[in-house]
């Protein structure tokens, strides 16, 4: 299961880095120097990514061409929405170092820091 997740990640990295529709064959060739993979394995992984809604595909001749639905940045931003939102679910699931400081608070904090900067820490 864990290995499958890593493979999905590797395929997504490849799709994100090429930036154009990619076939299973091309993906296999890009990944094989690093690991020994069967064509069917890569096809299954890409099919999974499609059913998860992470990639779109269109038929080109006999094979499908795959494109990521959202860019890597969009994907990260989407994930961080959960982290940054103040919902009840988020608060229970994660612990955050510091949420956000407004301008007034920031000024007070900077003052507190510099005020004592000359003292030995």
């Amino acid at each position, binding site marked *: 299961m864990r290995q499958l*997740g*890593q493979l*999905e*990640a590797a395929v*997504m990295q490849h799709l994100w880095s090429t930036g154009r529709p990619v076939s299973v064959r091309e993906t296999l060739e890009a990944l094989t120097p690093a690991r020994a993979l069967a064509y069917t394995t890569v096809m299954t992984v890409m099919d999974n990514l499609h059913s998860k809604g*992470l990639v779109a595909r269109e038929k080109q001749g006999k094979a499908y061409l795959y494109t990521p639905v959202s860019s*890597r*940045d969009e*994907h*990260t*931003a*989407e*994930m*961080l929405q*959960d*982290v*940054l*939102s*103040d919902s*009840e*679910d*988020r*608060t*229970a*699931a*994660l*612990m*955050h*170092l*510091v*949420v*956000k*400081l*407004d301008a007034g*608070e*920031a000024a*007070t*904090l*900077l003052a*507190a*820091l510099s*005020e*004592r*900067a000359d003292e030995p*820490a």
Partner: protein
Amino acid sequence: MIAALLLVAFAAAVSILGAQLLSRPWVMRSPRVAVLSWQALSTSVVTSILLAATALALPFLPLRFSLASLLGAHTLTIVEHYETPLGSWPGIIGLSVVGGLTTMLVATTVRSFVRTRRVRRLQRNALELVGRRHPGGFTVIEHDVPIAYCLPGTGTGTVVLSSAAMALLDDRERELVLGHERRHLRARHDLALAYSGALARTFPHVPLFATAHAQVAVLLEMAADDAAATPADRRALASAIVALGTGVRPETALAASDTAALVRVRRLTSTTRSPEWGLGLAAAAGAAVLFSLPLGLAMAPALEAAARDCCTMIDLSVGS
């Protein structure tokens, strides 16, 4: 009847006094002791209310037989001591309170558990796609908002830093931030937060639990600050908090502002005082009272009944 009333009065009194005592500045010196005190206070209040309801319902509960045999008293004498002049109504109310509160608590706890697990699973899946493992033992995501958080659960959990946070912090600050998050993970601070959160969500109209939850959240951050930073490092950690808190670009428009950070930074930059043993001892004594007193109040009528039965038997034997 009197036991139930005393228990409710006890719950009300410790809610007010306890919350006042735990809002004093001493809590900043020993955040860990303060967290335990808040949890003990909340637990004691819930227990007192449950015991009060149980005391009212006792004449109708099978528990009366076990209590009688445990204390060597007659079931009838025990029932007499818990009966109220108002007939069976207080008993019915007591039963529904016990049933209702227990059901609500279990339901909220299960629901938060399921949701928490779902959010964490989604996070882990997403991190697998967009995150990269740093040799320092944490996960880095490419993002231009400086952010540091931890994802508890599944073994050791994960600390996540955004690339903007990496750029913003120097090496020492980064190590302190990592130490802070790892402390959360190792000490399972998420479980403490889940407990106070479950109470706050189950009883949204009880101010004590809302206050306790908010306080526990801040105090756990302070506890992690303390574990991460030696006295010499405290200023660096404070500046890391300020950097991460202010480095956020305005267009991200986050939901909440973090007033608690202000208190933490002031605390980290002020002179350090080592936690005092006295505070821990006082808190332990307080917790002992918080747990034994409600139980004593609930049991008092039964004990009195047992004492009376015991005396009657002696009287009988003398008489014969």
